[in-house]
């Protein structure tokens, strides 16, 4: 009887996952395999690819720019992810209170940035941080503080990029975490109130553990997204070549090599290495989840 159930279970499982898994394999993983083949060639999109073996990979490991791109990618990941997820958790928690006035309004406002096309977001922030007449420098002028040329300075540009990333993605994670928080039965909080627990205690012992499944999701996703940091480097780096060279990330490098310099083979090699790096980080996270994620 047990064996029969198990067998039937497998069939159901494979049936249920089939559309999604097959879909992803066909439309994502199969093209990725093609990408692997391309990484062993020299290809400029128009003529036929030329097989050149491992030379792209050899070149990759000797290219100082690639190492710079890796460092910058790590910089953005390590800085933006904790900030994004942390602030989102704080906001989601704040928005989950029953007695909060205008909750729906706040939720809508924080969600708005996610709705805007990235290209428009980048344009708007270029204007806001414009060195001569932007909003930010205007305020600084009123306060008699120095007004830097934001996009002519690599460090300042990084700051702006982190800020804009936060602005655009916090809405997404807040909504996700909020949905998770809403699954937590208020009975737990009431019990804690009766026992005289403070806000911090409630958060640490009830909220946090019970939202870890969604938190895990947010972390994995935030890390993957931040690895792919490209749009803002592209737009904010446009005005100053030297700054752009300083802040370039792997995703940007892949795009530039493949589509501006038409070296698809080389770009694909970098893309494969990039995916392997991200995969390793994700696997590590997956393994580590037993230590801190609580499922019911």
């Amino acid at each position, binding site marked *: 009887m047990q064996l029969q159930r198990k067998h*039937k279970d497998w069939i159901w499982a494979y049936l249920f996952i089939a559309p999604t898994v097959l879909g992803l394999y066909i439309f994502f993983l199969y093209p990725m395999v093609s990408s692997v083949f391309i990484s062993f060639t020299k290809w400029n999109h*128009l003529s036929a690819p030329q097989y050149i073996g491992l030379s792209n990979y050899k070149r990759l490991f000797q290219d100082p720019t690639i190492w710079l791109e890796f460092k910058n990618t790590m910089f953005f990941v390590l800085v933006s992810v904790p900030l994004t997820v942390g602030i989102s958790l704080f906001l989601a928690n704040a928005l989950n209170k029953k007695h909060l006035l205008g909750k729906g309004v706040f939720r809508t406002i924080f969600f708005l940035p996610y709705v805007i096309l990235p290209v428009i977001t980048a344009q708007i922030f270029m204007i806001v941080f414009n060195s001569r007449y932007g909003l930010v420098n205007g305020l600084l002028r009123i306060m008699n503080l120095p007004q830097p*040329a934001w*996009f002519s300075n690599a460090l300042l540009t990084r700051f702006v990029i982190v800020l804009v990333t936060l602005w655009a993605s916090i809405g997404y994670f807040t909504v996700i975490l909020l949905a998770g928080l809403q699954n937590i039965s208020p009975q737990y909080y009431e019990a804690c109130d009766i026992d005289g627990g403070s806000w911090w205690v409630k958060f640490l012992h009830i909220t946090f553990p019970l939202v870890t499944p969604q938190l895990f999701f947010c972390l994995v996703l935030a890390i993957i997204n931040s690895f792919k940091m490209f749009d803002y480097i592209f737009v904010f780096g446009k005005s100053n070549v030297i700054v752009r060279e300083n802040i370039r990330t792997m995703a940007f490098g892949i795009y530039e090599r493949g589509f501006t*310099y*038409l*070296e698809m083979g080389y770009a694909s090699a970098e893309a494969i290495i990039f995916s392997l790096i991200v995969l390793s980080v994700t696997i590590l996270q997956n393994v580590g989840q037993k230590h801190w994620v609580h499922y019911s």
Partner: protein
Amino acid sequence: MKKDLRTVLVAMLLIALSLNSLFAAGGAEAKPQETKTINFWYWDQNGEEVYKKMIAEFEAQNAGIKVNMSIIPWSDYWTKLQMALPTGTGPDVFWLNHPNAVSYLPTGLIMNLEPYKDQIKFENFNSIYSEPFMHEGSRYGVPIFFDSVILYYNKAMFDKAGLAYPDDSWTWDDYLNASAKLTIKDKGTTIQYGTIADPDMQSGASNFILQNGGTLFSEDRMKLVIDTPEGREAAQFLLDLIYKYGYSPTVSEMREITKATMFQSGMVAMITNHTGILKQFAEILGPDLGIAPMPKQKQRASIYHNLGYVASAKTKHPEEVMKFMSYLASERHATLLSSVWAPCYNGGAELFFKEYSWLDTKAIVDTVNYGYPLPISAKNAGPVYTLLNNEMDKVFMQPQLGNGLAEIEKVINAEINK
């Protein structure tokens, strides 16, 4: 259990059936046998109305041919083309520019137009416009419209400073002196710049290098030979405008706000830019806009660039495409096009400039006499051009030229031979 399985199977079946019907509905439109459709791609929305008109005319004159035009965003035009053309799902006729002509023509994906030279009257175009679209002696493209680089200036600012307008007698000295008088500072910040010293290889630096007698690419365009005494002089002249005299904003500033915006909003009195932007400037500055040829030094020089219509070699309807191409090479096409751009067709430019009667448009028409083509290499042109602009930008971020041009040569020559 049995009921569940049934429900699942029924649901899956329904989904599959509905998808199928959507699919079938999509492909069910049978095209009548006689109508042949040509796909035409280009990237500038400004041309939409005039092309609609032209296509309507062409279709009326050619029963059985339908032209489908698609405007592809500039940012991804080449990406899309690269994917569609080799697989035969791309356009039959499309726009091509100089740098990409170098990459596309040798691939066999573009149709050779020589066999059709009776239908397409190439003699109605100045040969400098057909040249970039030639490969191994054959012509592959029909020239569309051109732009050359001129000097734009703000008449109101000149009046205020009591200066005479630029004219064709101007040399670099006149240019420098005017810039000095047109730069206004207020409490240490420059609120008006005389000019913009632009490293751009189309609208800026290359013109000055050539005007001083310098060179850009070698005859065969396989090498960059920009590091000559004349070239260095020209580059340092521009650098001095920025750093020594302060008559021009820095590269970062001009890229952040964009040259055009600075000129349009009255921050700058003069800029060198290509004629494609004339319409925009005229709209915003109106009677305050003035144009003149760029100042000369040892000679006159102006970089020109033109687009060409090319046809896909894999087209399923070569005859119909040729009919369309010969329409696109006709006088009628040039007349209609002149409401938006300056056509390459002989005499077309004058038509375009009729609208701008308050401007000295003869200056533009004359540039064809001292025009130099866009500086592109004979190999790997697209990437090389991008890299060249990037390197020039870097050089312009230092007040002293130093070895700048020699460095650029090294980098570019390496890229050409990749």
